[in-house]
């Protein structure tokens, strides 16, 4: 057991405790943001630097390429959110708790990514969920924020109860909570997994993970929560905690599907197509940018869910790449919205609906860096090359096309065509915001964009474009990660 492999988690846990202690003893808490940003940066360096694989704590946690790439996503998202929060929560007297919750949420997501045992998966999931319930309601004088937290909490805890019920049935069938052991038992007794109890367990697990991934019909909480929560927290939720659902689904569902050769293609194809179409169509009519981003994030979850349809190595790699790209694009977009909110509050302290699309009019003149980053993120989200969004979608759609051709299946091809049409549809609502920013006249003066926001935006823009122009190392990482699942 080589504990160095778990150094990032250990570092972030200790830092989370340290941050609360520092908050107790210090009067001015603005420095705490810098400490947690530095800690997250150190954790990122550790994640990139540490090579090796292993299992820990009686095989409850496993460190492998799949867990590492998702941990990199989580740490990058938290780093962006924390950097932006230095400005967003400046002079807030509860900053210490805020930063420690972000760190604990990150640790929870990392544990879920590493989980090799249903107990560890559940505990990691709950640690991240509980920290984010509180974060969503962090503006405790703001009714919208509290309402977002309440809806997120109620639906989140129902979904974890569903997941736990599914896990209890799986444990009853297999007699173990260790995921590889469960797969072995199921492989030895194929009848077990297709028995009615096995199917019920599978449905409960899909529902539990589906809530976190915000797949239609489990998406109701996402728009409300992303709209009401503080923008930097929405960035964390949309870009980070959603990916936790995906990593859990990759670990449990894909392993189960591949090992059992269960025929769930149609189920996931229908879920994915409904999710992306619903997300894109509803996003068109939104006037609140945060709500629009929430629906676009539902649509993106639909694209990523296509990876479950064919479960080849390439499609899983495509899903992981799109998840990585989406983390940067969506996280960056929500941070940019936070900056616009800051600008609107500078104009008028009592402004309502600060993320209304009208407030984006003339942003190209008022806040050039923000407007340019929103332009990059939105074009990337629409899948325009060279960007992370394009690479992810390309690999994913390509993998399904190959599979459709090799299986000579017309409906798989149809799924790809619907997905591509959906991407085209999404350009409409992204372009509308771009028109507001660059074509319509400004109704205010140029503002000074605070340095932390600008740093977070610039990092996200660099990441988005870097994956787009130099994708080989990222594709290789994603393929390595997908090979852990033992797929074709």
């Amino acid at each position, binding site marked *: 057991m080589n504990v160095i492999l778990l150094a990032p988690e250990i570092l972030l846990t200790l830092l989370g405790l340290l941050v609360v202690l520092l908050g107790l003893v210090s009067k001015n808490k603005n420095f705490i943001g810098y400490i947690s940003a530095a800690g997250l940066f150190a954790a990122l360096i550790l994640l990139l630097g540490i090579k090796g694989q292993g299992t820990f704590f009686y095989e409850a946690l496993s460190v492998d390429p799949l867990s590492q790439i998702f941990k990199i996503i989580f740490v990058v998202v938290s780093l962006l959110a924390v950097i932006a929060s230095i400005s967003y929560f400046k002079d807030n007297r509860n900053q210490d708790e805020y930063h420690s919750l972000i760190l604990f949420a990150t640790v929870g997501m990392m544990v879920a990514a590493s989980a090799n045992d249903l107990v560890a998966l559940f*505990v990691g999931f*709950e640690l991240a969920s509980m920290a984010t319930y509180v974060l969503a309601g962090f503006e*405790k*004088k703001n009714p919208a924020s509290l309402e977002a937290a309440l809806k997120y909490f109620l639906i989140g*805890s129902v979904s974890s109860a569903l997941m736990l019920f599914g896990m*209890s049935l799986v444990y009853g069938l297999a*007699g173990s909570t260790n995921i590889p052991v469960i797969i072995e038992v199921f492989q030895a007794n194929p009848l077990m997994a297709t028995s009615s109890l096995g199917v019920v367990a599978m449905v409960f697990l899909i529902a539990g993970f589906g809530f976190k991934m915000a797949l239609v019909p489990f998406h109701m909480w996402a*728009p409300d929560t992303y709209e009401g929560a503080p923008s930097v927290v929405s960035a964390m939720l949309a870009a980070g905690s959603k990916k936790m659902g995906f990593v859990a689904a990759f670990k449990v569902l894909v392993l189960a599907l591949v090992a059992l050769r269960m025929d769930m293609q149609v189920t996931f194809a229908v879920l994915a197509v409904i999710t992306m179409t619903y997300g894109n169509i509803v996003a068109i009519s939104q006037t609140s940018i945060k709500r629009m981003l929430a629906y676009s994030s539902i649509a993106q979850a639909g694209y990523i869910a296509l990876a479950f349809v064919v479960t080849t190595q390439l499609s899983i790699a495509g899903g992981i790449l799109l998840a990585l790209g989406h983390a940067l694009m969506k996280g960056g977009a929500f941070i940019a919205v936070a900056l616009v909110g800051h600008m609107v509050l500078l104009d008028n302290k009592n402004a309502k609906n600060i993320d209304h699309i009208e407030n984006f009019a003339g942003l190209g003149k008022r806040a050039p860096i923000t407007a340019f980053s929103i332009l990059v993120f939105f074009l990337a989200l629409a899948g325009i090359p060279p960007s992370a969004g394009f690479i992810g979608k390309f690999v994913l759609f390509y993998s399904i096309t190959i599979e459709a051709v090799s299986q000579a299946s017309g409906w798989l091809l149809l799924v790809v065509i619907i997905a591509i049409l959906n991407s085209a549809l999404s350009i409409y609502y992204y372009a509308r915001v771009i028109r507001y920013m660059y074509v319509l006249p400004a109704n205010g003066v140029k503002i000074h964009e605070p340095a932390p926001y600008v740093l977070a935006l610039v990092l996200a823009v660099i990441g988005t474009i870097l994956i787009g122009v130099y994708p080989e190392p990222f594709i290789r990482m994603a393929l390595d990660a997908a090979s852990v699942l033992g797929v074709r």
Partner: protein
Amino acid sequence: MSLYMYLLVAAIIFTIGAYGVMTQRNGIKILMCIELLLNASNLNLVAFSSFSGNATGQVFTLFSIAIAAAEAGIGFAILVALFRVRDTINLDNINILRW
């Protein structure tokens, strides 16, 4: 008693909880129903564990009880904060966010 009786009781509790979550409009009652959902799973785990003579399920239950307690704590905290701002925890009145 056979394993099926325990599973049946757990399934009934789970159904009551699920029904309550869908029909109740009071925040506290919904929290109680969520507890029912979680405890139905715990009952399942313990029943499976004791009938198969394998302790993992009981350990899992201890974890999930601790987590359920923490979750209830957070839920009540959110409800209290909401009550201070809005003077209600009836979900029908909590509707600022909608499209």
